């Protein structure tokens, strides 16, 4: 069918392309694939930007109060990263990586591009809304970036923006809040679109239990965004009121700032912000990880040519994980003195939520068991995801137990735990996804050699960055120090900082082959010989590469569950009728 469809779709796509002017086709496009790519390119820019901020901070951490070589003078007069800038970079690194980098890439780019394809739809259910969500995201990004150029710089109260600090902070914080309102709006519109598309636009035969695991992950994620983000939006509005209208939602009475009593009515509650913030931000962690879990599932199935072990268990675990993520938020707040009853409740839910996570990892491991694995570049990243995510997950348990959290809270241990989940976890999965679907998006493969260089350098360097954090955290070093050598216990752990920083810089260099590969393979990569170069079973492989404007010129239908490879590795895609 491939030749026939290919020719047909080619003429079709060209017909559509010439009908639209450039700005409608590439800038204000309503095509889910163009929007997906817009999300992807913008998100990669922000990921590199946020990473860049951290590379500068890592110089200060490794060599405190020494001038940054070569580029230091761009930031301050003496080339030393000032404490003010350090705080801004820290806050914005977190914000940019989470809200402008990983989520837009995982949900905006991959979700937009693949969900309609995998359910066999022509486009998203609401194409104009889709365009609007991208541009809301774009505006949010512009506001966040612009805040660096405001008189006192960007927000500097951490990505969590805890009051009272955030309320009495400089104006960058107001811009942060306004930027967040844009980003939240974008996420809400996007998640409505994803859910409606996946549910309503399924082709004939695609029942829920035949959804690819990636679609399940995206829909669960969309529900998390839809229902967890509004409380943060409310909290953002309240904090903006505190900052602009002089209210005291988060300001207790009797607050003294810089030796002067603050002239506000008082009576507010700073803990309320933490509750509202983490009501979003804990589900947000699962927003970061679930799409990655979906991508890894797809890649493992295709590269082992085996059905995913326990597909149903996997689906139930994903959904249960999503639901449970709503009722664990206060484990971020054990140190606020919320009392034994509350702590015990959230400790219990936190232990419960680790069960579905372990089930998901186990099903993937059991899929690998006994398989003859094809180690393509995406598969390398997908396999590396498993132990990395496991380290990230398991190191979370001591933080979820109230007793051990007392020691580890707010130390580098927390940073290590969280980054193992999102950096070698989610980001590796997203890179795997780029390598995996690149042939579908462009019709060409990315270079294998460059991909392998990228993988091996990254996997070694990234462990060099985050593994020492566990040791530093257990040594009791706070995560918020500008210069830890002023304390004896910090000075003792300082050599670890040098290892981490050097690893981070190597990690940055390791991304160059990836970026080069992505940019040049577009024109020079090896061409795909069919619609289904990896031998996948899901619907996106029925479309030509790249898919034409409306994806499927001839209607497709689904005849079976995904990942039905027969024992002799014969391909049984969802879209082919004969067994």
């Amino acid at each position, binding site marked *: 069918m491939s030749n026939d469809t290919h020719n047909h779709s080619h003429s079709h796509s060209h017909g559509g392309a010439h009908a639209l002017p450039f700005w409608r086709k590439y800038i204000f496009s309503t095509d889910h694939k163009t929007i997906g790519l817009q999300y992807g390119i913008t998100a990669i820019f922000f990921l590199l930007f946020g990473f860049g901020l951290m590379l500068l901070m890592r110089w200060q951490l490794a060599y405190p109060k020494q001038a940054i070589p070569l580029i230091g003078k761009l930031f301050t007069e003496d080339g030393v990263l000032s404490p003010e800038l350090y705080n801004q970079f820290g806050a914005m690194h977190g914000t940019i990586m989470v809200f402008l980098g990983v989520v837009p890439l995982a949900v905006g780019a991959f979700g937009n591009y693949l969900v309609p394809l995998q359910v066999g739809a022509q*486009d998203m259910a609401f194409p104009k809304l889709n365009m609007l969500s991208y541009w809301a995201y774009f505006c949010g990004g512009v506001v966040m970036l612009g805040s660096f150029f405001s008189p006192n710089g960007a927000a500097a109260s951490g990505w969590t923006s805890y009051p009272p600090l955030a309320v009495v902070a400089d104006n960058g914080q107001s811009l942060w809040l306004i930027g967040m309102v844009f980003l939240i709006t974008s996420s809400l519109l996007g998640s409505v679109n994803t859910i409606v598309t996946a549910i309503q636009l399924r082709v004939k035969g695609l029942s829920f239990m035949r959804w690819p695991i990636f679609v399940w992950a995206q829909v669960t994620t969309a529900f998390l965004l839809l229902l967890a983000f509004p409380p943060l939006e409310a909290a953002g509005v309240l904090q903006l009121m505190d900052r602009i209208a002089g209210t005291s939602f988060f300001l207790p009475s009797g607050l003294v700032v810089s030796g002067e009593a603050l002239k506000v009515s008082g009576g507010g509650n700073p803990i309320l912000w933490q509750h509202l913030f983490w009501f979003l931000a804990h589900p947000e962690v699962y927003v970061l990880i679930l799409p990655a879990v979906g991508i890894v599932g797809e890649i493992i199935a295709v590269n082992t040519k085996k059905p995913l072990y326990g597909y149903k268990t996997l689906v139930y675990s994903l959904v249960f994980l999503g639901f449970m993520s709503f009722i664990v938020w206060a484990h971020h707040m054990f140190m606020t003195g919320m009392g034994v009853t509350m702590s015990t409740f959230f400790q219990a839910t936190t232990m419960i939520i680790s069960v579905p996570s372990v089930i998901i990892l186990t099903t993937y491991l059991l899929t690998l068991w006994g398989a003859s694995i094809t180690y393509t570049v995406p598969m390398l990243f997908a396999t590396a995801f498993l132990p990395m995510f496991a380290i990230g997950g398991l190191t979370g348990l001591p933080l979820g137990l109230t007793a051990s959290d007392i020691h580890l809270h707010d130390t580098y241990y927390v940073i290590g735990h969280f980054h193992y989940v999102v950096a070698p976890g989610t980001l590796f999965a997203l890179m795997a996804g780029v390598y995996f679907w690149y042939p579908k998006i462009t019709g060409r493969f990315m270079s294998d050699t460059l991909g392998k260089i990228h993988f091996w350098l990254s996997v070694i360097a990234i462990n060099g960055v985050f593994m020492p954090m566990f040791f530093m955290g257990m040594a009791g070093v706070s995560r918020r120090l500008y210069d830890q050598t002023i304390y004896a216990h910090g000075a003792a752990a300082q050599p670890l900082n040098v290892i981490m920083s050097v690893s981070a810089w190597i990690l940055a260099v390791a991304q160059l082959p990836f970026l080069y590969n992505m940019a040049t393979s577009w024109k020079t990569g090896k061409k795909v010989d069919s619609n289904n170069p990896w031998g996948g079973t899901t619907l996106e492989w029925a479309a030509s590469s790249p898919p034409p404007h409306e994806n499927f010129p001839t209607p497709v239908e689904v005849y079976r569950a995904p990942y039905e490879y027969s024992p002799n590795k014969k391909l049984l895609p969802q879209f082919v009728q004969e067994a």
Partner: protein
Amino acid sequence: MSALIPYIDEPHPVTGVTNAKLGIWLFLASEVMLFGALFSTLIIMRSSATDWPAHGSDVLNVPLATLNTVFLIASSVTIVLSWAALKMKDLKKFKLNMGLTILLSFGFLVIKYIEYSSKFHHEHFPSTSTFYAVYFTLTGLHGLHVVGGIIANSYLLGPGSKMWFTEPERFTGRIECAGLYWHFVDLVWIFLFPALYLL
């Protein structure tokens, strides 16, 4: 292009709803969470505030707010009647009822304006006390929702109504969605009114 997307004017055979209807309900679900967080805030502020008025009626104008409640309830009725008019293929009656809905919503905003300006006149601002902070923030956000509803409904009454002649089913669906949103705005007020004015 949009013509290719199925189930924009007819319900999906399995789920039984159109895309827009599922979409608007999802959106309302997120709105429920938004106002849930705000009501949570109200409860916290009230339980820990030192100078919360014993009765909202001591500081707020209950008769005006009652009138506003009646306005919103009436507008909820007129918007559902405008939808029913379309079901009976009566565009004139639709326009009459939708016009009334918009008129009533403007009435709501005018009264809100009178209330706000009398508060400002007496030097009561959001920064005055916790009570006023909650009052202005919650009614303000609700007011923004009313403004949003007026914009959407005006579009549907004016330029948007041309769709009736080309895709009547889809247009009726749009009115149903606009109605659902508007009822939700009414619903929020039904809880805000006693919480702020009567307790």
